[in-house]
Protein backbone atom coordinates (compact mmCIF):
# COMPACT_ATOMS: atom_id res chain seq x y z
CA UNK A 1 0.00 0.00 0.00
CA UNK A 2 1.32 3.35 -0.97
CA UNK A 3 2.05 5.77 1.80
CA UNK A 4 0.57 9.25 1.57
CA UNK A 5 1.95 11.76 4.05
CA UNK A 6 -1.07 13.69 5.40
CA UNK A 7 1.18 16.64 6.20
CA UNK A 8 2.63 17.01 2.68
CA UNK A 9 1.69 20.38 1.17
CA UNK A 10 -0.51 20.01 -1.91
CA UNK A 11 1.60 20.16 -5.11
CA UNK A 12 4.84 20.17 -3.14
CA UNK A 13 7.63 17.93 -4.46
CA UNK A 14 6.88 15.27 -1.85
CA UNK A 15 3.12 15.40 -2.53
CA UNK A 16 3.72 15.04 -6.28
CA UNK A 17 6.24 12.22 -5.82
CA UNK A 18 3.77 10.20 -3.79
CA UNK A 19 1.17 10.54 -6.50
CA UNK A 20 3.11 10.63 -9.75
CA UNK A 21 6.74 9.64 -9.00
CA UNK A 22 7.87 12.84 -10.72
CA UNK A 23 11.50 12.59 -9.56
CA UNK A 24 11.82 9.04 -10.90
CA UNK A 25 10.19 10.04 -14.19
CA UNK A 26 12.52 13.02 -14.53
CA UNK A 27 15.55 10.82 -13.93
CA UNK A 28 14.53 8.07 -16.33
CA UNK A 29 13.44 10.41 -19.10
CA UNK A 30 15.90 13.25 -18.86
CA UNK A 31 18.48 13.90 -16.12
CA UNK A 32 19.73 10.30 -16.04
CA UNK A 33 19.21 9.41 -19.66
CA UNK A 34 22.82 9.24 -20.80
CA UNK A 35 24.19 10.45 -24.13
CA UNK A 36 27.78 9.75 -25.25
CA UNK A 37 30.13 12.71 -25.43
CA UNK A 38 31.67 11.45 -28.66
CA UNK A 39 29.03 12.74 -31.08
CA UNK A 40 28.67 15.67 -33.47
CA UNK A 41 25.96 18.05 -34.68
CA UNK A 42 24.34 15.29 -36.75
CA UNK A 43 23.09 13.77 -33.48
CA UNK A 44 20.92 16.86 -33.00
CA UNK A 45 18.75 16.07 -36.04
CA UNK A 46 16.28 14.07 -33.96
CA UNK A 47 15.37 17.05 -31.82
CA UNK A 48 15.44 19.30 -34.90
CA UNK A 49 12.83 16.96 -36.42
CA UNK A 50 10.73 16.99 -33.26
CA UNK A 51 10.80 20.81 -33.25
CA UNK A 52 9.88 20.96 -36.95
CA UNK A 53 6.98 18.59 -36.32
CA UNK A 54 5.88 20.95 -33.55
CA UNK A 55 5.93 23.87 -36.00
CA UNK A 56 3.87 21.87 -38.50
CA UNK A 57 1.34 21.10 -35.79
CA UNK A 58 1.01 24.71 -34.62
CA UNK A 59 0.84 26.24 -38.10
CA UNK A 60 -1.60 23.49 -39.13
CA UNK A 61 -3.93 24.35 -36.25
CA UNK A 62 -4.16 27.94 -37.47
CA UNK A 63 -4.69 26.91 -41.10
CA UNK A 64 -7.44 24.54 -39.99
CA UNK A 65 -9.55 27.46 -38.74
CA UNK A 66 -10.18 28.83 -42.24
CA UNK A 67 -9.53 25.91 -44.58
CA UNK A 68 -12.71 24.46 -46.16
CA UNK A 69 -12.59 20.80 -47.28
CA UNK A 70 -15.02 21.34 -50.14
CA UNK A 71 -14.02 20.90 -53.80
CA UNK A 72 -15.69 24.18 -54.72
CA UNK A 73 -14.26 26.23 -51.87
CA UNK A 74 -10.95 24.61 -50.89
CA UNK A 75 -8.82 26.41 -53.48
CA UNK A 76 -10.15 29.86 -52.59
CA UNK A 77 -10.12 29.22 -48.86
CA UNK A 78 -6.35 28.67 -49.14
CA UNK A 79 -5.34 31.05 -51.90
CA UNK A 80 -7.73 33.88 -51.14
CA UNK A 81 -9.06 33.68 -47.58
CA UNK A 82 -5.95 32.43 -45.78
CA UNK A 83 -3.45 34.22 -48.01
CA UNK A 84 -5.02 37.66 -48.24
CA UNK A 85 -7.84 38.03 -45.72
CA UNK A 86 -6.74 36.25 -42.56
CA UNK A 87 -4.27 38.33 -40.54
CA UNK A 88 -0.88 36.59 -40.83
CA UNK A 89 -2.57 33.68 -42.63
CA UNK A 90 0.31 33.77 -45.10
CA UNK A 91 2.74 33.19 -42.23
CA UNK A 92 1.08 29.91 -41.19
CA UNK A 93 0.84 28.73 -44.76
CA UNK A 94 4.47 29.51 -45.54
CA UNK A 95 5.65 27.92 -42.29
CA UNK A 96 3.53 24.84 -43.06
CA UNK A 97 4.71 24.56 -46.66
CA UNK A 98 8.40 25.23 -45.98
CA UNK A 99 8.43 22.92 -42.93
CA UNK A 100 6.76 20.13 -44.92
CA UNK A 101 9.57 20.31 -47.46
CA UNK A 102 12.47 20.89 -45.04
CA UNK A 103 11.33 18.13 -42.67
CA UNK A 104 12.11 15.61 -45.41
CA UNK A 105 15.59 17.05 -45.92
CA UNK A 106 16.26 16.58 -42.20
CA UNK A 107 14.71 13.09 -42.25
CA UNK A 108 17.08 12.11 -45.08
CA UNK A 109 20.07 13.57 -43.19
CA UNK A 110 18.93 11.72 -40.05
CA UNK A 111 18.56 8.46 -42.03
CA UNK A 112 21.89 8.68 -43.80
CA UNK A 113 23.63 9.59 -40.53
CA UNK A 114 22.22 6.35 -39.12
CA UNK A 115 23.39 4.39 -42.16
CA UNK A 116 26.86 5.97 -42.13
CA UNK A 117 27.56 5.25 -38.44
CA UNK A 118 25.85 1.83 -38.40
CA UNK A 119 23.27 2.98 -35.85
CA UNK A 120 20.77 0.28 -36.87
CA UNK A 121 22.69 -2.75 -35.56
CA UNK A 122 23.28 -4.68 -32.36
CA UNK A 123 20.24 -3.77 -30.30
CA UNK A 124 19.31 -0.70 -32.35
CA UNK A 125 17.19 -2.54 -34.98
CA UNK A 126 13.90 -1.30 -33.54
CA UNK A 127 15.11 2.29 -33.60
CA UNK A 128 15.71 1.91 -37.32
CA UNK A 129 12.39 0.17 -38.00
CA UNK A 130 10.33 2.67 -35.99
CA UNK A 131 12.20 5.45 -37.80
CA UNK A 132 11.30 3.94 -41.17
CA UNK A 133 7.66 3.67 -40.06
CA UNK A 134 7.85 7.39 -39.31
CA UNK A 135 9.27 8.00 -42.79
CA UNK A 136 6.32 6.17 -44.34
CA UNK A 137 3.71 7.95 -42.19
CA UNK A 138 5.34 11.33 -42.86
CA UNK A 139 5.13 10.51 -46.58
CA UNK A 140 1.41 9.72 -46.25
CA UNK A 141 0.94 12.90 -44.22
CA UNK A 142 2.74 14.98 -46.86
CA UNK A 143 0.76 13.42 -49.70
CA UNK A 144 -2.64 13.84 -48.02
CA UNK A 145 -1.77 17.45 -47.16
CA UNK A 146 -0.79 18.12 -50.74
CA UNK A 147 -4.34 17.24 -51.84
CA UNK A 148 -5.97 19.90 -49.68
CA UNK A 149 -5.46 23.15 -51.68
CA UNK A 150 -7.24 21.34 -54.56
CA UNK A 151 -5.02 22.82 -57.25
CA UNK A 152 -4.03 21.12 -60.50
CA UNK A 153 -1.06 19.32 -58.98
CA UNK A 154 -3.17 18.20 -55.99
CA UNK A 155 -5.78 16.71 -58.28
CA UNK A 156 -3.46 14.99 -60.72
CA UNK A 157 -1.04 13.72 -58.09
CA UNK A 158 -4.12 12.30 -56.34
CA UNK A 159 -5.24 10.64 -59.57
CA UNK A 160 -1.83 9.13 -60.36
CA UNK A 161 -0.99 7.93 -56.84
CA UNK A 162 -4.40 6.36 -56.15
CA UNK A 163 -4.16 4.60 -59.54
CA UNK A 164 -1.06 2.81 -58.23
CA UNK A 165 -3.41 0.78 -56.03
CA UNK A 166 -4.93 -0.92 -59.07
CA UNK A 167 -1.61 -2.84 -58.90
CA UNK A 168 -0.97 -2.88 -62.64
CA UNK A 169 -2.34 -5.88 -64.52
CA UNK A 170 -4.34 -6.98 -61.49
CA UNK A 171 -6.68 -4.12 -62.56
CA UNK A 172 -8.11 -3.62 -59.08
CA UNK A 173 -10.19 -0.66 -60.25
CA UNK A 174 -12.78 -1.37 -57.58
CA UNK A 175 -10.13 -0.85 -54.91
CA UNK A 176 -9.06 2.44 -56.49
CA UNK A 177 -12.67 3.63 -56.61
CA UNK A 178 -13.13 2.53 -53.00
CA UNK A 179 -10.09 4.52 -51.89
CA UNK A 180 -11.40 7.58 -53.75
CA UNK A 181 -15.07 7.07 -52.91
CA UNK A 182 -15.73 8.05 -56.53
CA UNK A 183 -14.63 7.20 -60.06
CA UNK A 184 -12.25 10.15 -59.95
CA UNK A 185 -10.93 12.30 -57.10
CA UNK A 186 -13.90 14.39 -55.95
CA UNK A 187 -15.68 15.54 -52.80
CA UNK A 188 -15.53 12.11 -51.12
CA UNK A 189 -11.79 11.96 -51.85
CA UNK A 190 -11.07 15.46 -50.53
CA UNK A 191 -13.10 14.83 -47.38
CA UNK A 192 -11.33 11.61 -46.45
CA UNK A 193 -7.86 12.90 -47.22
CA UNK A 194 -8.65 15.96 -45.10
CA UNK A 195 -9.56 13.62 -42.22
CA UNK A 196 -6.38 11.59 -42.73
CA UNK A 197 -4.21 14.69 -42.85
CA UNK A 198 -5.55 16.54 -39.83
CA UNK A 199 -6.43 13.67 -37.51
CA UNK A 200 -5.59 10.05 -38.24
CA UNK A 201 -2.06 10.42 -39.63
CA UNK A 202 -0.95 12.96 -36.99
CA UNK A 203 -2.24 10.62 -34.24
CA UNK A 204 -0.27 7.73 -35.71
CA UNK A 205 2.81 9.93 -36.13
CA UNK A 206 2.68 11.10 -32.50
CA UNK A 207 2.31 7.50 -31.30
CA UNK A 208 5.24 6.44 -33.49
CA UNK A 209 7.43 9.30 -32.19
CA UNK A 210 6.80 8.07 -28.63
CA UNK A 211 7.64 4.52 -29.78
CA UNK A 212 10.79 5.76 -31.56
CA UNK A 213 11.97 7.47 -28.35
CA UNK A 214 11.11 4.31 -26.42
CA UNK A 215 13.25 2.10 -28.68
CA UNK A 216 16.15 4.46 -28.03
CA UNK A 217 16.05 4.35 -24.24
CA UNK A 218 17.73 0.96 -23.61
CA UNK A 219 20.30 0.71 -26.44
CA UNK A 220 21.10 4.45 -26.13
CA UNK A 221 22.28 6.50 -29.09
CA UNK A 222 25.31 5.39 -31.07
CA UNK A 223 28.52 7.46 -31.14
CA UNK A 224 31.05 8.59 -33.72
CA UNK A 225 33.24 5.49 -33.33
CA UNK A 226 30.51 2.89 -32.82
CA UNK A 227 32.09 2.21 -29.44
CA UNK A 228 30.18 -0.04 -27.06
CA UNK A 229 29.90 2.08 -23.95
CA UNK A 230 29.10 0.70 -20.49
CA UNK A 231 26.51 3.36 -19.79
CA UNK A 232 26.00 2.41 -16.14
CA UNK A 233 29.70 2.57 -15.28
CA UNK A 234 30.18 5.85 -17.17
CA UNK A 235 27.07 7.32 -15.54
CA UNK A 236 28.50 6.48 -12.11
CA UNK A 237 31.64 8.44 -12.99
CA UNK A 238 29.53 11.46 -13.96
CA UNK A 239 27.39 11.24 -10.83
CA UNK A 240 30.53 10.94 -8.65
CA UNK A 241 31.62 14.30 -10.04
CA UNK A 242 34.20 12.77 -12.37
CA UNK A 243 32.71 14.63 -15.30
CA UNK A 244 35.86 15.00 -17.37
CA UNK A 245 36.58 11.29 -17.38
CA UNK A 246 32.99 10.10 -17.93
CA UNK A 247 32.23 9.20 -21.54
CA UNK A 248 28.62 10.30 -21.14
CA UNK A 249 26.56 13.37 -20.37
CA UNK A 250 22.96 13.58 -19.16
CA UNK A 251 20.32 14.28 -21.81
CA UNK A 252 18.98 17.15 -19.74
CA UNK A 253 20.35 19.77 -19.34
CA UNK A 254 23.75 19.07 -20.97
CA UNK A 255 22.92 17.38 -24.28
CA UNK A 256 19.72 19.38 -24.69
CA UNK A 257 21.65 22.65 -24.47
CA UNK A 258 23.81 21.48 -27.41
CA UNK A 259 20.62 20.49 -29.24
CA UNK A 260 19.14 23.91 -28.61
CA UNK A 261 22.23 25.53 -30.10
CA UNK A 262 21.91 23.46 -33.30
CA UNK A 263 18.18 24.21 -33.37
CA UNK A 264 18.99 27.92 -33.05
CA UNK A 265 21.17 27.79 -36.17
CA UNK A 266 18.56 25.66 -37.94
CA UNK A 267 15.70 28.04 -37.15
CA UNK A 268 17.64 31.05 -38.44
CA UNK A 269 17.94 29.27 -41.81
CA UNK A 270 14.37 27.96 -41.57
CA UNK A 271 12.78 31.35 -40.99
CA UNK A 272 14.99 32.93 -43.63
CA UNK A 273 13.33 30.49 -46.04
CA UNK A 274 9.86 31.14 -44.64
CA UNK A 275 10.13 34.91 -45.03
CA UNK A 276 12.32 35.38 -48.08
CA UNK A 277 12.58 32.15 -50.09
CA UNK A 278 9.37 30.20 -49.66
CA UNK A 279 8.74 29.76 -53.41
CA UNK A 280 10.60 26.45 -53.58
CA UNK A 281 7.86 24.89 -51.45
CA UNK A 282 5.02 26.38 -53.53
CA UNK A 283 4.66 24.70 -56.92
CA UNK A 284 3.30 27.25 -59.44
CA UNK A 285 1.17 24.54 -61.14
CA UNK A 286 -0.80 24.17 -57.92
CA UNK A 287 -1.90 27.79 -58.17
CA UNK A 288 -4.32 26.72 -60.93
CA UNK A 289 -7.57 25.28 -59.55
CA UNK A 290 -8.10 21.53 -60.08
CA UNK A 291 -9.43 20.75 -63.56
CA UNK A 292 -10.47 17.13 -64.24
CA UNK A 293 -10.34 17.74 -67.99
CA UNK A 294 -6.80 19.07 -68.27
CA UNK A 295 -3.59 17.29 -67.22
CA UNK A 296 -0.66 19.60 -66.48
CA UNK A 297 2.17 19.25 -69.04
CA UNK A 298 4.43 17.55 -66.49
CA UNK A 299 3.23 15.80 -63.37
CA UNK A 300 6.00 15.38 -60.82
CA UNK A 301 5.89 14.90 -57.08
CA UNK A 302 7.60 17.12 -54.52
CA UNK A 303 11.39 16.74 -54.50
CA UNK A 304 11.46 14.24 -51.63
CA UNK A 305 9.49 11.63 -53.58
CA UNK A 306 11.39 12.07 -56.85
CA UNK A 307 13.93 9.26 -56.36
CA UNK A 308 11.26 6.59 -55.90
CA UNK A 309 9.10 8.11 -58.68
CA UNK A 310 12.08 7.78 -61.01
CA UNK A 311 12.32 4.06 -60.17
CA UNK A 312 8.68 3.72 -61.28
CA UNK A 313 9.05 5.64 -64.50
CA UNK A 314 11.46 3.89 -66.86
CA UNK A 315 9.85 0.44 -66.66
CA UNK A 316 6.65 -1.01 -68.08
CA UNK A 317 3.69 -0.69 -65.72
CA UNK A 318 3.88 -3.96 -63.76
CA UNK A 319 7.67 -4.10 -63.49
CA UNK A 320 7.81 -0.42 -62.59
CA UNK A 321 5.28 -0.97 -59.81
CA UNK A 322 7.22 -3.94 -58.53
CA UNK A 323 10.49 -2.02 -58.23
CA UNK A 324 8.65 0.98 -56.82
CA UNK A 325 7.24 -1.28 -54.08
CA UNK A 326 10.72 -2.70 -53.58
CA UNK A 327 12.18 0.79 -53.11
CA UNK A 328 9.48 1.64 -50.55
CA UNK A 329 10.18 -1.31 -48.26
CA UNK A 330 13.82 -2.24 -48.77
CA UNK A 331 15.18 0.33 -46.30
CA UNK A 332 13.23 -1.46 -43.55
CA UNK A 333 15.42 -4.53 -44.07
CA UNK A 334 18.73 -2.68 -43.72
CA UNK A 335 19.56 -4.10 -40.23
CA UNK A 336 19.14 -7.62 -41.58
CA UNK A 337 20.77 -7.18 -44.98
CA UNK A 338 23.92 -5.78 -43.37
CA UNK A 339 25.72 -9.03 -42.46
CA UNK A 340 28.78 -7.40 -40.89
CA UNK A 341 29.14 -7.36 -37.09
CA UNK A 342 30.98 -4.04 -37.24
CA UNK A 343 29.35 -0.97 -35.77
CA UNK A 344 31.66 1.69 -37.10
CA UNK A 345 31.55 4.75 -39.33
CA UNK A 346 31.40 3.81 -43.02
CA UNK A 347 34.85 5.26 -43.74
CA UNK A 348 36.40 2.46 -41.63
CA UNK A 349 34.36 -0.30 -43.26
CA UNK A 350 36.14 -0.73 -46.59
CA UNK A 351 33.65 -2.11 -49.15
CA UNK A 352 30.69 -0.67 -47.26
CA UNK A 353 32.19 2.81 -47.60
CA UNK A 354 31.85 2.60 -51.39
CA UNK A 355 28.36 1.10 -51.07
CA UNK A 356 27.23 3.99 -48.86
CA UNK A 357 28.49 6.76 -51.14
CA UNK A 358 27.27 5.08 -54.34
CA UNK A 359 23.80 4.69 -52.79
CA UNK A 360 23.74 8.33 -51.69
CA UNK A 361 24.91 9.65 -55.08
CA UNK A 362 22.55 7.29 -56.94
CA UNK A 363 19.59 8.62 -54.98
CA UNK A 364 20.67 12.20 -55.68
CA UNK A 365 20.93 11.33 -59.40
CA UNK A 366 17.48 9.68 -59.37
CA UNK A 367 16.07 12.76 -57.64
CA UNK A 368 17.46 15.07 -60.34
CA UNK A 369 16.27 12.82 -63.19
CA UNK A 370 12.81 12.51 -61.63
CA UNK A 371 12.32 16.23 -62.23
CA UNK A 372 13.39 16.12 -65.90
CA UNK A 373 10.93 15.19 -68.68
CA UNK A 374 10.98 11.47 -69.67
CA UNK A 375 12.80 11.94 -72.98
CA UNK A 376 15.87 10.64 -74.79
CA UNK A 377 19.04 10.45 -72.71
CA UNK A 378 17.15 11.15 -69.47
CA UNK A 379 15.10 7.97 -69.89
CA UNK A 380 18.29 5.96 -70.47
CA UNK A 381 20.08 7.48 -67.48
CA UNK A 382 17.00 7.01 -65.32
CA UNK A 383 16.89 3.32 -66.24
CA UNK A 384 20.60 2.85 -65.49
CA UNK A 385 20.39 4.56 -62.08
CA UNK A 386 17.19 2.69 -61.21
CA UNK A 387 18.91 -0.65 -61.93
CA UNK A 388 21.91 0.54 -59.92
CA UNK A 389 19.67 1.26 -56.91
CA UNK A 390 18.17 -2.24 -57.09
CA UNK A 391 21.56 -3.89 -57.63
CA UNK A 392 23.04 -2.08 -54.62
CA UNK A 393 20.49 -3.61 -52.29
CA UNK A 394 21.00 -7.09 -53.68
CA UNK A 395 24.75 -6.62 -53.28
CA UNK A 396 24.57 -5.39 -49.68
CA UNK A 397 24.67 -8.80 -47.90
CA UNK A 398 27.72 -9.81 -49.97
CA UNK A 399 29.48 -6.46 -49.59
CA UNK A 400 29.09 -6.57 -45.80
CA UNK A 401 29.98 -10.27 -45.57
CA UNK A 402 33.36 -9.51 -47.16
CA UNK A 403 34.12 -6.98 -44.46
CA UNK A 404 36.95 -7.64 -41.96
CA UNK A 405 36.23 -6.96 -38.29
CA UNK A 406 37.26 -3.47 -37.26
CA UNK A 407 37.85 -2.72 -33.62
CA UNK A 408 36.40 0.38 -32.05
CA UNK A 409 38.90 3.21 -31.63
Amino acid at each position, binding site marked *: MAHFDPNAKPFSNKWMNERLAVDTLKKVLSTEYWIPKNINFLWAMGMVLAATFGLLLVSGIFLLMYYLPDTKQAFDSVNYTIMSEVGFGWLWRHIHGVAASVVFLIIYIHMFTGIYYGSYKKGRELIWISGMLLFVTFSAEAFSGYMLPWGQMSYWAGMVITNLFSLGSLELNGLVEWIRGDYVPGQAFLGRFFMLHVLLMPLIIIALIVFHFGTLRLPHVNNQDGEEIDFEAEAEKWKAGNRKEAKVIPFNPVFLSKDVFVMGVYFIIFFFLVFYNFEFAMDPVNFDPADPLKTPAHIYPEWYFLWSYEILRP*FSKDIGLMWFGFAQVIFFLLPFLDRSPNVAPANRRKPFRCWFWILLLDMVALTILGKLPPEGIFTTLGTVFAYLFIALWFALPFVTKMEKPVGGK
Partner: protein
Amino acid sequence: MSNRRDFMGMALGAFTGLGALGALYAAKRTWDPLPSVKSAGFTTVDVSSAQENVLYTEMWRGKPVFVLKVSKKDKAYKDKRLITVGGEKFFIAIGLCTHLGCIPSYFPDQNKFICACHGGQFDAAGEVLKAPPPSPLVIPPFKVDGKKVVLGEEGPDYKKLKAAGLVA
Protein backbone atom coordinates in the same frame (compact mmCIF):
# COMPACT_ATOMS: atom_id res chain seq x y z
CA MET B 1 -13.20 -23.08 -12.27
CA SER B 2 -10.87 -22.94 -15.18
CA ASN B 3 -13.66 -24.18 -17.45
CA ARG B 4 -15.88 -21.34 -16.39
CA ARG B 5 -13.06 -18.84 -16.96
CA ASP B 6 -12.37 -20.31 -20.37
CA PHE B 7 -16.03 -19.99 -21.21
CA MET B 8 -16.13 -16.35 -20.06
CA GLY B 9 -12.98 -15.61 -22.01
CA MET B 10 -14.30 -17.22 -25.16
CA ALA B 11 -17.69 -15.55 -24.84
CA LEU B 12 -16.04 -12.15 -24.38
CA GLY B 13 -13.66 -12.87 -27.27
CA ALA B 14 -16.46 -13.93 -29.57
CA PHE B 15 -18.61 -10.91 -28.80
CA THR B 16 -15.78 -8.40 -29.16
CA GLY B 17 -14.69 -10.22 -32.32
CA LEU B 18 -18.16 -9.90 -33.79
CA GLY B 19 -18.30 -6.26 -32.77
CA ALA B 20 -14.92 -5.62 -34.37
CA LEU B 21 -15.99 -7.31 -37.60
CA GLY B 22 -19.19 -5.27 -37.67
CA ALA B 23 -17.27 -2.07 -37.05
CA LEU B 24 -14.80 -2.96 -39.82
CA TYR B 25 -17.66 -3.60 -42.23
CA ALA B 26 -19.28 -0.28 -41.29
CA ALA B 27 -15.92 1.47 -41.81
CA LYS B 28 -15.52 -0.20 -45.21
CA ARG B 29 -19.04 0.82 -46.25
CA THR B 30 -18.44 4.40 -45.12
CA TRP B 31 -15.52 4.58 -47.54
CA ASP B 32 -17.60 3.15 -50.43
CA PRO B 33 -18.69 5.51 -53.22
CA LEU B 34 -22.08 7.03 -52.36
CA PRO B 35 -25.21 5.81 -54.21
CA SER B 36 -25.59 9.25 -55.74
CA VAL B 37 -22.07 8.95 -57.13
CA LYS B 38 -22.69 5.39 -58.38
CA SER B 39 -25.87 6.33 -60.20
CA ALA B 40 -24.41 9.52 -61.68
CA GLY B 41 -25.93 8.30 -64.84
CA PHE B 42 -25.52 8.52 -68.49
CA THR B 43 -24.08 11.07 -70.86
CA THR B 44 -25.50 11.51 -74.34
CA VAL B 45 -23.12 12.78 -76.99
CA ASP B 46 -24.39 14.15 -80.30
CA VAL B 47 -21.71 13.44 -82.92
CA SER B 48 -23.54 14.75 -85.99
CA SER B 49 -21.60 18.01 -86.15
CA ALA B 50 -18.16 16.50 -85.38
CA GLN B 51 -15.33 17.39 -87.76
CA GLU B 52 -12.71 14.96 -88.96
CA ASN B 53 -9.48 14.67 -86.99
CA VAL B 54 -10.63 17.16 -84.35
CA LEU B 55 -10.68 15.86 -80.79
CA TYR B 56 -13.79 16.51 -78.67
CA THR B 57 -13.69 15.83 -74.95
CA GLU B 58 -16.89 14.99 -73.09
CA MET B 59 -17.31 14.32 -69.40
CA TRP B 60 -18.76 11.00 -68.17
CA ARG B 61 -18.77 10.00 -64.49
CA GLY B 62 -16.19 12.69 -63.81
CA LYS B 63 -13.83 11.29 -66.41
CA PRO B 64 -12.94 12.84 -69.74
CA VAL B 65 -14.16 10.85 -72.78
CA PHE B 66 -12.43 11.36 -76.12
CA VAL B 67 -14.58 11.58 -79.25
CA LEU B 68 -12.63 11.64 -82.50
CA LYS B 69 -13.98 11.34 -86.04
CA VAL B 70 -11.24 9.36 -87.74
CA SER B 71 -10.38 10.34 -91.31
CA LYS B 72 -10.02 7.74 -94.08
CA LYS B 73 -6.40 8.79 -94.61
CA ASP B 74 -5.49 7.75 -91.08
CA LYS B 75 -3.87 4.30 -90.73
CA ALA B 76 -6.10 3.65 -87.75
CA TYR B 77 -9.25 3.91 -89.94
CA LYS B 78 -9.42 0.14 -90.35
CA ASP B 79 -9.06 -0.59 -86.63
CA LYS B 80 -11.84 -2.80 -85.25
CA ARG B 81 -12.05 -0.63 -82.11
CA LEU B 82 -13.63 2.22 -84.02
CA ILE B 83 -17.36 2.76 -83.63
CA THR B 84 -19.64 3.36 -86.61
CA VAL B 85 -22.23 6.10 -86.06
CA GLY B 86 -24.35 7.13 -89.04
CA GLY B 87 -21.85 5.65 -91.53
CA GLU B 88 -18.89 7.58 -90.08
CA LYS B 89 -16.11 6.03 -88.01
CA PHE B 90 -15.50 7.34 -84.53
CA PHE B 91 -12.96 6.64 -81.85
CA ILE B 92 -14.61 6.92 -78.44
CA ALA B 93 -12.63 6.11 -75.29
CA ILE B 94 -12.00 7.22 -71.74
CA GLY B 95 -9.31 9.90 -72.04
CA LEU B 96 -7.12 8.63 -69.25
CA CYS B 97 -3.80 6.97 -69.95
CA THR B 98 -3.94 3.30 -68.92
CA HIS B 99 -0.58 3.72 -67.21
CA LEU B 100 -1.43 6.01 -64.33
CA GLY B 101 -4.40 8.08 -65.44
CA CYS B 102 -3.02 11.29 -66.96
CA ILE B 103 -4.89 12.80 -69.91
CA PRO B 104 -2.95 12.32 -73.16
CA SER B 105 -2.99 15.20 -75.65
CA TYR B 106 -3.96 14.68 -79.30
CA PHE B 107 -1.59 15.77 -82.06
CA PRO B 108 -3.73 15.96 -85.26
CA ASP B 109 -0.73 16.29 -87.60
CA GLN B 110 0.75 13.00 -86.32
CA ASN B 111 -2.66 11.32 -85.74
CA LYS B 112 -1.61 10.23 -82.27
CA PHE B 113 -2.07 10.81 -78.57
CA ILE B 114 0.97 11.56 -76.42
CA CYS B 115 0.91 11.44 -72.63
CA ALA B 116 3.12 14.06 -71.04
CA CYS B 117 3.42 12.28 -67.72
CA HIS B 118 5.48 9.26 -68.62
CA GLY B 119 5.78 9.51 -72.42
CA GLY B 120 3.18 6.92 -73.48
CA GLN B 121 1.74 7.14 -77.04
CA PHE B 122 -1.50 5.90 -78.63
CA ASP B 123 -2.73 5.94 -82.22
CA ALA B 124 -6.12 7.37 -83.30
CA ALA B 125 -7.84 4.09 -82.33
CA GLY B 126 -6.31 4.17 -78.86
CA GLU B 127 -3.81 1.36 -79.52
CA VAL B 128 -0.48 1.66 -77.71
CA LEU B 129 2.38 2.89 -79.88
CA LYS B 130 4.90 3.39 -77.09
CA ALA B 131 5.12 2.06 -73.49
CA PRO B 132 4.68 2.46 -70.49
CA PRO B 133 0.86 2.15 -70.97
CA PRO B 134 0.13 -1.60 -70.79
CA SER B 135 -3.13 -1.58 -72.73
CA PRO B 136 -5.13 0.54 -75.22
CA LEU B 137 -7.34 3.42 -74.09
CA VAL B 138 -10.49 1.97 -72.53
CA ILE B 139 -13.79 2.12 -74.45
CA PRO B 140 -16.64 2.95 -72.04
CA PRO B 141 -20.02 1.17 -72.23
CA PHE B 142 -21.97 2.87 -75.04
CA LYS B 143 -25.08 2.54 -77.15
CA VAL B 144 -25.41 4.03 -80.63
CA ASP B 145 -28.73 5.82 -81.01
CA GLY B 146 -29.05 7.34 -84.49
CA LYS B 147 -26.49 10.18 -84.63
CA LYS B 148 -26.10 10.08 -80.89
CA VAL B 149 -24.06 7.93 -78.53
CA VAL B 150 -25.24 7.19 -74.99
CA LEU B 151 -22.33 6.59 -72.60
CA GLY B 152 -22.91 4.26 -69.64
CA GLU B 153 -25.34 1.93 -71.37
CA GLU B 154 -24.21 -1.35 -72.96
CA GLY B 155 -25.59 -1.41 -76.53
CA PRO B 156 -25.22 -4.28 -79.06
CA ASP B 157 -22.08 -2.75 -80.65
CA TYR B 158 -20.42 -2.45 -77.26
CA LYS B 159 -21.30 -6.05 -76.39
CA LYS B 160 -19.75 -7.21 -79.66
CA LEU B 161 -16.54 -5.30 -78.95
CA LYS B 162 -16.48 -6.62 -75.41
CA ALA B 163 -16.97 -10.21 -76.57
CA ALA B 164 -14.05 -9.74 -78.96
CA GLY B 165 -11.96 -8.42 -76.06
CA LEU B 166 -11.42 -5.07 -77.74
CA VAL B 167 -12.80 -2.62 -75.16
CA ALA B 168 -9.67 -2.40 -73.01
